[in-house]
């Protein structure tokens, strides 16, 4: 074998997968179509957001790179949804796109055990049986062998872009698609579907009049996404907000017939949550205006990103409607918006480890699996990399549960339910979101990082210091009691005299900052830790309630189904259920119960069969054995 592992693609999934493998001491080859396009933020120049910010921090806690890259390249930072409760808050940062990509490439180049090579993969290699993946074949006819392969091809597989009646085989505007691989995988029996996504125009900063827009600044403090870094000291650049109006909508409506979306040119399914402007105007004709965010793409570029107005209408139509927006009257388009349609592999063909059921040793991650978003791609890449490494080590895969990480929710949804539109993470997809706060991702997941071997000594030190620090803060709060003289300048504390500071903090009106004024010993701990402890205390009761829900959920998850389980021998369940169970090969009864179309009575039968003593597999029906 030439390598332990080959990673195809150097987007956000490929970066994480290749780094994880190389860091775990496996010789890894990263093959990309263009060494100049590593770590591109192909769409919006931002990382994080609701639930996505949580994912970035999960990636960090598990030993991934994304948080560190954005920490070094952010140009604005905000905690979103401060008004809506800590479980639904999340960090989001504007990124300097070019810097982000440059840092990503640099990180890969500096990584020991990691080899970078520019070529296009057109097929995989398999063993004689055709069930084990043993390497890849490239466009230029090179054959590389390896013990594992991680495929992260993003939107490039048979990618095709659309602008009005113009269409071209491309992965991103100006970059050729990866042609051949999708067909090869179809021929190898994979179910391959088409998805669609879109991106708005990039416009020239100096052609905009910001005085006609609302300015939206970031938070004063740039917090780091990474748990192993305190703050980010980076320039702050504001975004701006403008709105579409009736004129904009009229231009768009008048040109519906020119949209490849409505003409039937595009067959792939687009995301409902992130529609193009023509979609929005068509589906919500009563809306008077749509909000558009004008976001800088970087410090050293004039390009600005128009968030909320992606379009595949003809370029001149795009220019026409953009010019109806306040502040964009003289807008100069540098790159037009476009739609891109691409192949994705039905992710139900994967095990929860992200390994293919068809070809052992082949792992798939990122947009190839039908997801959308940098963060979703990154965390899959990391998990695929970790699990490829664990396979090489002969260890069981790391599968995160829905109750411990958004990553767990993401992968479970993908491999259990599949997806019919680009899958984006949403906070509401997570049943146990109170336990999935962004600020405690390390508490939840760093133990796995220590287990896999991706944790460095420094990370361990910082983590344990934080954990102990938070415990000390809580202990201090338990010891201190609210005394009468605390209330002289604080009405809020009056009802709490005699109570411990810990109990007092549960009062929604009392804050940790307020208590810190009365308990100076708290100042020795970082603000971050104090706020972490504050949320722990305030939400303790709710979290305890949620934990009871989780305990019920875990019971079903812990009922594992052996890989060689014989579904054909299950009597008394519907043929549809049987087929679905055989296809998905659920890891646990819990996962089986989430497969759509599998009836609860079928799950009951499965449970009973699994609970029977060893050696009694098979029929429940007496007739068969008569």
């Amino acid at each position, binding site marked *: 074998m030439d390598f332990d592992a080959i990673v195809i693609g150097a987007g956000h999934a490929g970066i994480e997968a290749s780094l994880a493998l190389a860091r775990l001491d496996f010789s890894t080859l990263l093959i990309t179509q263009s060494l100049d396009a590593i770590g591109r933020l192909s769409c919006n120049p931002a990382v994080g*957001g*609701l*639930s996505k910010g949580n994912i970035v921090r999960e990636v960090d806690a598990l030993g991934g790179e994304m948080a560190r890259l954005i920490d070094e390249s952010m140009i604005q930072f905000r905690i*979103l*949804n*401060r*008004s*809506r*409760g*800590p*479980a*639904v808050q999340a960090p*989001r940062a504007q990124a300097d796109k070019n810097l982000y990509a440059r840092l990503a490439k640099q990180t890969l180049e500096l990584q020991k055990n990691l080899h970078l090579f520019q070529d296009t993969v057109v097929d995989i290699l398999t063993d004689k049986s055709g069930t084990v993946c043993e390497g890849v074949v490239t466009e230029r006819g090179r054959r590389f062998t390896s013990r594992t392969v991680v495929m992260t091809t993003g939107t490039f597989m048979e990618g095709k872009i659309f602008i009005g009646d113009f269409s071209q085989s491309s992965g991103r505007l100006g970059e050729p698609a990866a042609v051949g691989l999708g067909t090869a995988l179809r021929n190898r029996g994979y179910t391959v579907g088409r998805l669609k996504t879109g991106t708005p125009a990039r416009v020239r900063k100096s052609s905009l009049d910001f005085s006609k827009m609302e300015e*939206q600044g970031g938070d004063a403090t740039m917090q780091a996404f990474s748990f192993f870094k305190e703050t980010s000291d980076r320039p702050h650049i504001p975004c701006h907000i403008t709105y579409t109006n009736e004129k904009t909508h009229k231009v768009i409506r008048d040109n519906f017939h020119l949209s490849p979306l409505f003409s039937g040119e595009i067959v792939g399914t687009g995301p409902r*949550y992130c529609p193009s402007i023509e979609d929005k105007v068509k589906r919500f004709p009563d809306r008077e205006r749509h*909000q558009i965010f004008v976001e800088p793409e970087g410090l050293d570029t004039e390009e600005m990103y128009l968030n909320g107005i992606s379009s595949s209408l003809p370029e001149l139509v795009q220019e026409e409607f953009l010019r109806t927006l306040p502040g964009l009257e003289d807008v100069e388009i540098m790159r037009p918006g476009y739609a891109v349609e691409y192949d994705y592999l039905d992710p139900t063909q994967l095990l929860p480890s992200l390994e293919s059921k068809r070809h052992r040793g082949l792992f798939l991650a990122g947009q190839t699996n039908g997801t959308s978003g940098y963060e979703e791609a990154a965390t899959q890449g990391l998990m695929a990399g970790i699990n490829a490494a664990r396979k090489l080590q002969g260890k069981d895969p790391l599968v995160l549960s829905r109750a411990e990480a958004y990553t767990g929710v993401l992968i479970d949804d993908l491999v259990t339910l599949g997806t019919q539109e680009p899958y984006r993470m*949403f*906070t*509401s997809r997570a*049943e146990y*979101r*109170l336990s999935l706060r962004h600020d405690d991702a390390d508490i939840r997941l760093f133990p796995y990082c220590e287990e896999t071997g991706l944790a460095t000594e420094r990370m361990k030190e910082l983590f344990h210091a934080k954990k102990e620090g938070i415990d000390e803060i809580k202990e201090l709060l338990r010891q201190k009691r609210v005394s009468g003289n605390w209330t002289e300048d604080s009405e809020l504390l009056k009802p709490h005299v005699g109570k411990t500071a810990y109990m007092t903090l549960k009062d*929604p009106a009392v804050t940790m900052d307020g208590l810190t004024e009365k308990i100076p010993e708290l100042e020795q701990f970082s603000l971050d830790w104090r706020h972490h402890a504050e949320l722990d205390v305030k939400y303790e009761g*709710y979290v305890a*309630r*949620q934990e009871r*829900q989780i305990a*019920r959920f875990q*019971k*079903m998850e812990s*009922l594992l189904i052996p890989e060689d389980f014989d579904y054909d021998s299950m*009597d*008394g*369940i519907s043929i549809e259920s049987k087929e679905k169970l055989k296809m998905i090969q659920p890891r646990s*009864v819990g996962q089986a*119960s989430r497969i759509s179309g599998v*009836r*609860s*009575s079928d*799950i*009951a*039968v499965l*449970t*009973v069969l699994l*609970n*029977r003593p060893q050696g*009694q597999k098979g029929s*429940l*029906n*007496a*007739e068969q*054995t*008569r």
Partner: protein
Amino acid sequence: MNHDNYDPDDRIAALATPWAESAIAVIRTSGEGSIGAVDALFSGDLLSCESKKMCYGMIRNPESGDALDEILAVPFRAPGSYTGQESVELYCHGSLPGIQKILTLLFNKGFRQASPGEFTFRAFINGKMDLTRAEAVQEIISSKSGKAQSMALNRLSGTVEKRINQFKKTATVMAASFAIQLDYPDDEVEAPEPPLAELADMKTGLKQLIDSYQVGKIYQEGVVIALAGRTNAGKSSLFNLFLKEDRSIVSDIHGTTRDYLESWISLSGIPVRLYDTAGLRHSDDPIEEEGIRRTRELMENAQVILYVLDGTVELSDEERALISDESRQELLVWNKADISSRDIPHGVIPVSAVTGQGFSELEEAVKKRIFKDSAGAAGDAVIDSLRQKELLERALSGVEKVEEAIHNGLPVDILAMDLYDVLQALGEITGEVSSSDIMDTMFSSFCVGK
């Protein structure tokens, strides 16, 4: 989550008829090899007996050769049985010691005592019935009168399910209004108005359905009615009148100490256990005292007490006090109204146990007393399983928590969590969210043998 005692490979046996003296008792077995195993204890030839045909013979202890009973046995070959498995039903004489001997013999010969609901559990896992049906079967089995049975059937047709699905729809809409705040930041999407009106509606609806459990329970479990009054007031005649009016008498057995007569009757479909407390306050005899104690206990447990007054004789002081007591619990019956020449006091129901005059008015009064505030709810969705009631209460408590959280200004992540509880609870009723816990709870509430 312990399904060990639900292992469908075991052979199980249980008495399918009530544990009581009767003419005939039915013992049911299920599990592969049941026919062979019973045949070994049976003088007839079960192995060659056709499925679902009766076969006559003696049950014998094969070791001692003792004949235990003369019975009829019916073999069922899979999948043509209630459970879908091979089964045998034994029709034996209904003496308690006799039944016990046969069961003991079966348990010694490879059968295990069936767990509650285990026969139905097997029917369920063998695809003989689905979850909602499985639950309703228990009601049909244990229902003591026609109305209760039709209520259980009504559930099969899904009136309750329809109602619950409405709640679920409302809750889902609400959940979406929370989700939008969870999934989109505050600078992009404004928070929708809190759904206070919907919550209030849902609370009312849930409460109605929960209250209907009382009605369901009455039809399900029946009520106790006791007849009280002085000797010769006509209690026994009234007792007999109730029996005569009801053509569906189940049994008429004497109380063990002869303190009272009891009988199951059906009062417009409500199963009623009617007691005639003849013998109340007779003498100082210690045995009678014990009788009086039992009678008292009985009166305390009765939902309705019919106090019978003799319309032809002078009222006692006690009776006069009772008539003037506005807060009395007893229904007063003015018996012998056909021959009584006295003025009937206000609030007393005139009846003639001999002619049957006034009986239907009495019946109405009794029904009104049974249902008190809870509406008759005819044709409306009525729940009659404790599990459903508890889940609806969980949903209601979730709705109340959401309301409270909105009033207290708690963040939307908490609201969403409470609402998730509501959805889960509702989902568990209609069988959409299944967990082993539901299965355990549900099947353990099943009566043994069905």
